[in-house]
């Protein structure tokens, strides 16, 4: 079981450890980049290093790496877009120009277990980058960026489209699934040489009827893959929850509104590492509301592949709570017993019994963007 959590927030990166002290038994033990906008963190379980992505309003996006658990950090390279071909202008569906420039890092994942130093980075405005040297240098995956269908992507909640999920198949690191807001689910089986947009079964409630099943307009908020059964993936979508058990060939709508009541909207999803039928979600009231239903923070858990859901609330605030959990704000450890999630109002909770009971680690952190278990 993991005894350490990293929380990336609007005002710094916090290391949280299971010290056995305090009500929750977990304590904040280190603060890095205090006052800085840390929007993503990656604990690389292959070598124990950690990465942090900072988003400076004026100075751009930066990446830092530590090999000593946050004692010291080294700034490393950030992905850089190539120069746009002379005379070429790309616009989104609203006619706004999409510049070939890094806006921000939205996904950071380790490559395969046998690929030391390989990292994948999803960005706004939609470029996927690969590093083979621990982030010392980055290369744009040009096959995806130059795919004309990429220009059909659009922002979802942000002005620019972005890649927020990168799932590397533990069986075969050349098999990669990514999630795009808004651009659906894309899969490569050859390490990024060729790509397919896969989304049969996923549908949208926010497009004209003839676009409802267009896989390239789907606003998947987050995609996660079951490590022990990589053909099973879960997607928290803008208008529901979808699941595939055949490696994204087909998806099933498992938004069981009766047991999820009142909402299947949300951003975050976590799947049990050893049981693909078990997954967790943090529901919110849909679209522009983006609040916990009835001011009560709850977690939805299914153990039967989305046929039914338990609504978990033991230890979570049930009175005038307005915490929203972003797409990277929920994580599960390798044991499958411990989960943690953080909120926009600076609360972070942990469970050690798969969500039956929760403990608040802190309710006073800055807005939390990303929560991840670390070694």
């Amino acid at each position, binding site marked *: 079981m993991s005894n350490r959590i990293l929380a990336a927030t609007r005002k710094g990166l916090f290391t949280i450890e299971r010290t056995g002290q305090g009500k929750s038994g977990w304590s904040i033990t280190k603060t890095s980049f205090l006052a800085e906008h840390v929007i993503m963190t990656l604990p690389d379980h292959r070598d124990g290093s950690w990465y942090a992505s900072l988003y400076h*309003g*004026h*100075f*751009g996006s*930066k990446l830092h790496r530590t090999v000593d658990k946050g004692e010291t950090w080294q*700034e490393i390279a950030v992905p850089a*877009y190539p120069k746009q071909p002379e005379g070429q202008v790309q616009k989104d569906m609203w006619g706004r120009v999409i510049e*070939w*420039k*890094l806006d921000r890092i939205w996904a950071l994942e380790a490559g395969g277990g046998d690929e030391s130093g390989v990292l994948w980075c999803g960005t706004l405005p939609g470029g996927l980058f690969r590093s083979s040297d621990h982030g010392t240098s980055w290369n744009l995956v040009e096959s995806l960026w130059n795919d004309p269908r990429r220009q059909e992507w659009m922002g979802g909640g942000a002005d620019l489209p972005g890649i927020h999920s990168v799932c590397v198949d533990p069986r075969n690191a050349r098999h990669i699934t990514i999630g795009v807001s808004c651009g659906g689910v894309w899969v490569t089986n050859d390490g990024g040489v060729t790509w397919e947009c896969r989304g049969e079964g996923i549908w949208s409630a926010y497009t004209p009827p003839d676009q409802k099943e267009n896989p390239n307009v789907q606003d998947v908020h987050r995609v996660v893959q079951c490590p022990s059964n990589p053909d099973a993936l879960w997607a928290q979508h803008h208008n529901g929850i979808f699941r595939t058990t055949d490696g994204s060939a087909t998806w099933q709508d498992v938004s069981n509104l009766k047991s999820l009541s009142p909402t299947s909207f949300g951003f975050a999803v976590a799947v049990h590492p050893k049981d693909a039928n078990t997954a967790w979600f943090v529901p919110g009231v849909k679209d522009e509301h983006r609040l916990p239903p009835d001011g009560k923070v709850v977690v939805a858990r299914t153990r039967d592949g989305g046929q039914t859901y338990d609504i978990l609330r033991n230890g979570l605030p049930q009175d005038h709570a307005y915490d929203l959990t972003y797409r990277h704000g929920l994580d599960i450890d390798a044991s499958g017993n411990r989960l943690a999630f953080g909120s926009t109002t600076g609360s972070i909770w942990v469970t050690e019994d798969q969500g039956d009971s929760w403990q608040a680690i802190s309710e006073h952190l800055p807005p939390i963007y990303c929560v991840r278990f670390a070694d």
Partner: protein
Amino acid sequence: MPQVVFTDNIQRHVPCPPVEVAGTTVREVLDAVFAANERARGYVLDEHGAVRKHMVIFIDGTMIRDRMTLTDPVTPSSEIYVMQALSGG
């Protein structure tokens, strides 16, 4: 030689002391500065060498016009200030 002064706020990320370097355009001057302080380049300019969206550069009190290729002229007595734009928050 032209003098280049950086905003205080950049200093906590990457030290950028005032410096005098040769050059006849903003591009030449900044290239000379960043040749000796490469990490600072990405804090002021984007990956294509343009001034970052929320940064501004003044030459003798006047904001530069060419933010893309930095061709605004600089004299040997110029003072160049690299500052944050309020638009960046």
